[in-house]
């Protein structure tokens, strides 16, 4: 694996210009420069994938229906955008990407079922998909059994590393530690009150956060509360918060509960301009439902915000809006999902083959300089090196960046000392 990485770094230099730019449709003028001719199918596909001389099939597997459709729609949209851009720039190894989209219907076994269909029936070369941890956990054995390749976009709890998955979102330590350090340093925060939805991601994230607060920052956690998914009554916990007067309210509530939580928080007279609230579960998508005025002043920590100012993002946002409408917003996961197809394309072209084993072997060290979030790189553990950012919610539903980690943060899905 280490060798692969070095090779990747070397060759990256050579290809940076050509391949990196392929992500930007406006500049996609010389699509086939890297490879003089389309290599024959027999050479690039030795494992029976759905690759022809002109086409390669890629699956998209998200929930278009059910409760999770709210969150997953953005991912579908950005994956389609990325694939369209790649096709406009000449495709992958000279082959256009054909998309087969399946609906996980917010139902975990359906994800497993459809994943199997995409791999066994459709022979997809790669699948962009899954959103919740539960759906990934359900589909993962399928990808491992049939040796498929999944690009998973969501920031998640970590504790996983599969040969068959590339994780394009942040794992928990990447997202959490830097922001805790920031709030400790900038706001002098010592005491934290944690509120989360009751499932694995908030619990694991809070566990990591708690260890960091207690062991590294030498602060205290004055409360840790969990509510069932979909819970809408938070008055009691808000009273508790008022009583404990923590320096920071640390929130990882998801879905409809989010909306209720911030509305009730505001109604209870907690002014987020005075009380520091740091959330790891609110992106631009969520603010749409919460209402900007209800959450204005809260800090969110993510690796991407729509308002980021860099050339990549300034190309990405208009392209996305052009395709999906002026009113759409782009959250962290939507951006991470956008990376998947590009990372796959680069790995395929580096490997010179669609074969999953070769693509996987080529992946570590792949660098994407055109990512809207900035520069990212695939780590040996299949997660991305990325920066963490903290931004402040504004009443108009956008975020204002207040902090950015100076360096790329190394992904560490099995953090020692945090388990």
């Amino acid at each position, binding site marked *: 694996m280490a060798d692969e990485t070095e090779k990747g770094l070397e060759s990256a230099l050579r290809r940076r210009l050509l391949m990196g730019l392929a992500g930007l449709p406006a500049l996609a003028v010389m699509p086939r420069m890297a490879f003089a001719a389309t290599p024959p199918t027999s050479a690039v596909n030795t494992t029976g994938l759905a690759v022809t001389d002109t086409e390669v099939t890629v699956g998209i597997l998200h929930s*278009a*229906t059910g409760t999770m459709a709210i969150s997953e729609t953005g991912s579908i949209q950005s994956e389609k955008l990325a694939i369209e851009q790649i096709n406009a720039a000449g495709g992958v190894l000279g082959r256009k990407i054909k998309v087969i989209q*399946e*609906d996980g*219907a917010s*139902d*975990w*076994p*359906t994800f*497993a*079922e459809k994943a*199997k*269909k995409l791999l*066994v*029936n459709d022979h997809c070369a790669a699948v962009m998909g899954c959103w*919740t*941890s*539960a759906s990934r*956990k*359900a589909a*993962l*054995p399928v990808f491992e*059994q049939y040796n498929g390749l999944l690009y998973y976009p969501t920031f998640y709890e970590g*504790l996983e590393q599969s040969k068959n998955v590339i994780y394009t979102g942040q794992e928990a330590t990447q997202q959490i530690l830097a922001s805790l350090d920031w709030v400790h340093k900038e706001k002098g925060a010592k005491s934290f009150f944690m509120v989360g939805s*009751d*499932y*694995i991601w908030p*619990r*694991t994230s809070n*566990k990591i956060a708690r260890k960091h607060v207690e062991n590294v920052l030498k602060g205290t956690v004055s409360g840790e509360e*969990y509510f*069932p*998914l979909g819970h809408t009554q938070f008055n009691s916990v808000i009273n508790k918060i008022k009583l404990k007067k923590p320096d920071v309210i640390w929130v990882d509530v998801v879905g409809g509960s989010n909306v209720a939580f911030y509305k009730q928080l505001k109604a209870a007279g907690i002014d987020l301009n005075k009380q520091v609230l740091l959330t790891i579960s609110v992106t631009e998508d969520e603010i749409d439902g919460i209402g900007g005025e209800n959450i204005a002043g809260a800090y969110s920590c993510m690796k991407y915000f729509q308002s980021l100012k860099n050339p990549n993002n300034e190309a990405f946002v208009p392209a996305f809006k052009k395709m999906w409408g002026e009113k759409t917003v782009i959250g962290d996961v939507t951006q991470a999902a956008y990376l998947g197809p590009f990372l796959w394309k680069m790995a395929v072209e580096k490997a010179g083959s669609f074969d999953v084993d070769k693509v996987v072997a080529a992946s570590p060290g792949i660098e994407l300089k055109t990512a809207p979030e900035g520069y990212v790189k695939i780590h040996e553990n299949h997660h991305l090196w990325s920066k963490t950012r903290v931004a402040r919610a504004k009443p108009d539903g956008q975020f204002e960046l207040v902090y950015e980690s100076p360096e790329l943060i190394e992904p560490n899905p*099995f953090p020692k000392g945090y*388990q």
Partner: protein
Amino acid sequence: MTNPIQSLTKSVTVNDNPFMKPIEWLSLALLVVVILVVLPATLDAFRLNLVGKYLTYAFVALGLVICWGYAGILSLGQGCFFGLGGYCMAMYLKLEASSIENTKIQSTPGIPDFMDWNQITSLPWFWKPFQSLPLTLILVIAVPVLFAFVISFAMFKRRVGGTYFAIITQAIAAILTILIVGQQGYTGGINGITDLRTLHGWDIRTDSAHNILYFVNGGLLIGCILIAQFVKKSKLGRILVAMRDKEDRVRFSGYSVAGFKVFAFCLAAAFAAIGGAMFTLQVGFMSPSFVGIVPSIDMVIYAAVGGRMSLFGAIWGTLLVNWAKTSFSESFPDLWLFGLGALFILVVLAFPNGLAGIWREHLEPRLTRRVKALRAPAPAIIPQSAPAE
């Protein structure tokens, strides 16, 4: 007083109550052929595994026919039993998958990964029995049945029935889901128990294993149909029907109604549990999303579409709805919920007896007429068959 024609046709050769009528033998044969011969012969491994998954729901629908169709007890919490059966099986498989060898990177090797993530350092007591396969097989049925017994005994003794029972079972399904999700250190939380690999050393993830499991599943289902048929044909079956219509009267025939209802409910729970266990084996994981309200009501609709009074109808209904779900949601994901909703309404409004009713009321008479026409000259008076159940 007595109708002469009636007395002529219905001569008092008392029905000797055969285990199955010819038409029922025919239905069974058809089902056996389709499930065990036609489908395996025509479908690829992937689709066959899918059908296997659907058939695990058919166990639940079968139980609902007895419990809802015959005994008139609508349970909106069958997911609980399906889930409990599935979880029992999953716990065994998970322990097997969590050998010291497989889990050596954990801080406590030898326990399931999600426990390790939740700082649990030794196996909780209620997981211990699931280290043994025989004990697991017993518990797969015993735990859900015991749970069903506890729920139903108290309520039926106090004569809670009908809509109240439905609402309470629904609430129980909700509670159980919240509990499983909330106690993730012990249950795997919302992700459920995943990454199951072997059953007593036998890899259940291979295509050949899926094939064998499919046939085991089909065989068990047919076994359950026969059990259900036995119950239906026994006096107990007739008491259930009697009870559904005139519960009070059954009491005054000297029966303790509660006992019979508890039996029907527990039987349905046992069927659901078998389905759940087979689900876990074939799909390879179990999660709280099968325990809750939505799957529980979905399973009721399978039985309703098939015909709430028909054992065979329940199986066909399950297959039909799931097949529609898979193919519709593949091509028209947006329309699927409309279609499913409309199906509920249509079945209830227009076809309360479901597929079986359509068959009995429309197709069978027409078919019999055809057959009779062919068999001319027909006898002068043909005794009407007693209405089939």
